[in-house]
């Protein structure tokens, strides 16, 4: 794939915030050949998004290019010249964004949005344009293309919208496609779909892809070349095999280390009876409300049975809509099952009288940005559950909060801080502290690490393991990503559409999955594994 004229050449790019602010991107260089797939990998704040947006001239207002050169197809790109850039955008460089929920205009039909770019850049007439859009929709697997063209974005799911957006961008056959974290907001199965589609379409037309991601293992499967960025600088770049085989930079090694791996599990105490038993639980969501009352309720959990032993971690895994989160919420009492029983230490915690037992089950929520009260300090948040702990004096409560803060790795000054002053990882630590301050016997963790960066995810998982060893609580770990649970789950239960399709010890599930859905989930999980000599390679099952 070596040609003399690179498709895109970025030389010594510098992007500054405002006139005299800090540098978001510093002395950044890389090249792309036609048809090549290059991945820009880095965590938040690394500048990867800014560098890519500079190539298409869409830097947000305070940012501006203050140094360096960008050359596209042999000609320099003058990103300041709006008119010149408009000719390039869409027709020669296309861009796909991150949030499928908001990247399509909710007020215009799909057809209108898809045909807009074609109308702008080509001389085709309306009928041909419509035909092309329709063909492309069928190409991406939409059966009733005409109906789709007349529909609005809100009628489709997130994964579908991303595919439609891809389709509309590829309609113009650009030479370069910039994909800015296109799958981050989707669950792992939808992620795979979208990426495979992207590869298919680009392969057909020889389009190069500049793939921006924070997930090294995701791009490892597809990229030819990887550029690792940190704090605005390129830390390491090269062919993917070289980087995986022998990572040179420390940071790259750190990123690779952050990938979850099977480790030694927390030892289980001897127990004769299970801590939690879920027996034939069914949960329904009330149907949409109309003027005449509610319509037929929708069943989201069908007759689920599972049990958790004291000190054990049971991972509940499944795609979106599988019912796993709903089940977890039922155990802590946020949702009431319509049938079945949930027994904690033999006591039915669905009954209001057994509240004391139910309070032994605590929860860590998914979104670190909305699970903490913005008006309370960290100390107040962690101290609040102690209201229900009888027999503790004020001094003892203060001490307990101090101990918990230490446990989760937040030193004393954090006590007086507010949630908006903390990073995502720090907030999640506070959430963990709040769940553990009363030393519950069971903790439900609802996707606690999905919203965090890779290295932070590793830290939080390590913290979790350490705390489990220390306090011996059982855990119901809910996740859509199998690789995250590989590290800490004793047993794994896989859910699909409200039912448990497979359940068993970690080794069995990961090494010899039985159910097709489990296999699909595994296929979407991290494909990298560490070899004995310290290098990484793609798992055999994937290649």
């Amino acid at each position, binding site marked *: 794939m070596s040609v003399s004229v690179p498709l895109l050449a970025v030389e010594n790019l510098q992007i500054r915030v405002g006139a005299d602010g800090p540098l978001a991107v510093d002395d950044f260089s890389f090249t792309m050949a036609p048809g090549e797939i290059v991945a820009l990998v880095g965590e938040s704040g690394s500048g990867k998004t800014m560098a890519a947006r500079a190539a*298409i001239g*869409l830097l947000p207002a305070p940012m501006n290019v203050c140094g360096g050169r960008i050359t596209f197809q042999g000609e320099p790109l003058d990103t300041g010249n*709006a008119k010149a850039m*408009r*000719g*390039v*955008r*869409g*027709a020669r460089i*296309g*861009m796909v*964004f*991150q*949030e499928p929920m*908001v*990247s*399509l*205009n*909710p*007020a*215009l039909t799909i057809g209108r949005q898809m045909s*807009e*770019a074609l109308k*702008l*850049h080509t001389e085709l007439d309306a009928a041909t344009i419509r035909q092309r859009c329709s063909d492309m929709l069928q190409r991406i697997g939409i059966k009733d293309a005409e109906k789709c063209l007349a529909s*609005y974005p*809100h009628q489709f799911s997130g994964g579908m919208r991303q595919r439609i*957006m891809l389709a509309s961008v590829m309609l113009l056959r650009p030479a370069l496609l910039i994909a800015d974290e296109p799958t981050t907001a989707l669950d792992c199965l939808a992620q795979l779909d979208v990426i495979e589609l992207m590869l298919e379409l680009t392969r057909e037309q020889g389009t190069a892809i500049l793939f921006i991601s924070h997930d090294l293992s995701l791009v490892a499967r597809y990229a030819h070349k990887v550029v690792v960025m940190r704090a605005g600088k390129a830390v390491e770049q090269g062919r993917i095999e070289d980087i995986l085989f022998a990572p040179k930079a420390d940071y790259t090694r750190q990123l690779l280390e952050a990938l979850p791996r099977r480790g030694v599990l927390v030892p289980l105490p001897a127990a004769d009876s299970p801590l939690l038993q879920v027996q034939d639980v069914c949960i329904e969501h009330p149907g949409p409300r109309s*003027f005449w009352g509610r319509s037929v309720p929708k069943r989201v959990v069908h007759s689920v049975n599972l049990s958790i032993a004291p000190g054990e971690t049971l991972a509940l895994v499944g795609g979106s809509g599988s019912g796993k989160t709903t089940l977890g919420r039922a155990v802590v009492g946020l949702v009431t099952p319509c049938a079945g029983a949930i027994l904690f230490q033999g006591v039915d915690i669905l009954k209001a009288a057994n509240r004391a037992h139910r309070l032994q089950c605590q929860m860590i929520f998914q979104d670190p940005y909305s699970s903490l009260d913005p008006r309370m300090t960290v100390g107040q948040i962690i101290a609040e559950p102690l209201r229900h702990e009888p027999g503790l004096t004020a001094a003892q409560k203060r001490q307990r909060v101090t101990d918990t803060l230490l446990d989760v790795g937040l030193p004393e000054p954090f006590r007086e801080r507010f949630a908006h002053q903390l990073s995502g990882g720090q907030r999640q630590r506070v959430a963990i502290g709040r769940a553990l301050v009363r030393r519950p016997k069971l903790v439900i963790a609802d996707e606690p690490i999905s919203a965090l960066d890779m290295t932070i995810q590793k830290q939080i998982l390590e913290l979790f393991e350490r705390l489990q060893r220390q306090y011996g609580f059982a855990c119901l770990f809910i996740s859509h990503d199998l690789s995250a649970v590989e590290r800490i789950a004793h047993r794994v239960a896989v859910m699909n559409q409200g039912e448990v399709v497979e359940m068993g010890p970690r080794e069995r599930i990961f090494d010899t999955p039985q159910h097709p859905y489990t296999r699909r989930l595994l296929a979407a999980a991290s494909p990298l594994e560490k070899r004995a000599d310290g290098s990484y390679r793609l798992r055999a099952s994937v290649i």
Partner: protein
Amino acid sequence: MFRFILHRLGMAVPTLLLISVIVFALIRLIPGDPALLMLGDMADPQSLADMRSSLGLDHSVLTQYLIWIKSVLSGDLGVSISSRQPVLELLVERFSVSATVVLVAVLLATLLAVPVGLLAAWKQNSAMDLGLVATATLLLSVPSFWLGLLLLYVFGIQLGWLPVIGYVGFASDPMKAVTYVVLPIITLTLVEFGAIARMARASTIEVLRLEYIAHARAKGLSEGAVLWNHALRNAFAPTWTLIGLILGNLLGGIAVLETVFTLPGIGRLMVDAIFSRDYPVLQGCLLLITCIYVLVNLLVDLVYPLFDPRVKL
């Protein structure tokens, strides 16, 4: 689509019912003999007795209410004490004057304010934008009756271009009628321009931050096309709500402008009715204005799906 309309209409009915109860209660709460209130101090004993029985004053309150509702629905709103005119007739006559002024003014204000707001949002923080925000805020802060007075002083008295008091209906002399409504319309337009322009600007700024705008730009669309095709539709929704609110408020607030310009509109009718204790008229005005308000809200809601397809049809 029809289900949506039916549903909204269905929701409006209980509101209308409640409104009728409130108006009924309001009038009954006024201290004094209801029959005397309805007929005025000059009524003779025989008419008073007749009125008492027709109002059903010797029956329970519920019966009184039902009697009252029945007459309202059949168009009998009583007779004005001061002018001896049937209330319904009076209401229609006066309302048409107010409605003309309000509708024309709000339409003009919208047509001017929305494009200006869009432009200001596009060139945010430029000199033009800041100038617009300052002007709009200023216009917003000036009370309509004072602005009316000032304009009247300048154009009516000093320059003598337009008449100062009086009114001529459109039916009798269209050309002259226009001169009487020009100033009130201009005043109202100026005052509402400020509020609408600010809202249009604010919601456009909001929308321009969203990702689908970046996506549209990434397709290569010019800024103008992005603004017009993508931003406007989404930004207009909050502005449309504001327009609905403004129309609703003006139904009551028009009284002050009508007083300044001596227009025979419904606001002035109501104020006069309060002063002259003309309770049948007062009651009629309350009923009419509130029902129109509910209607306006309904219409605003029905138009919504045009801008935001996410609203369940």
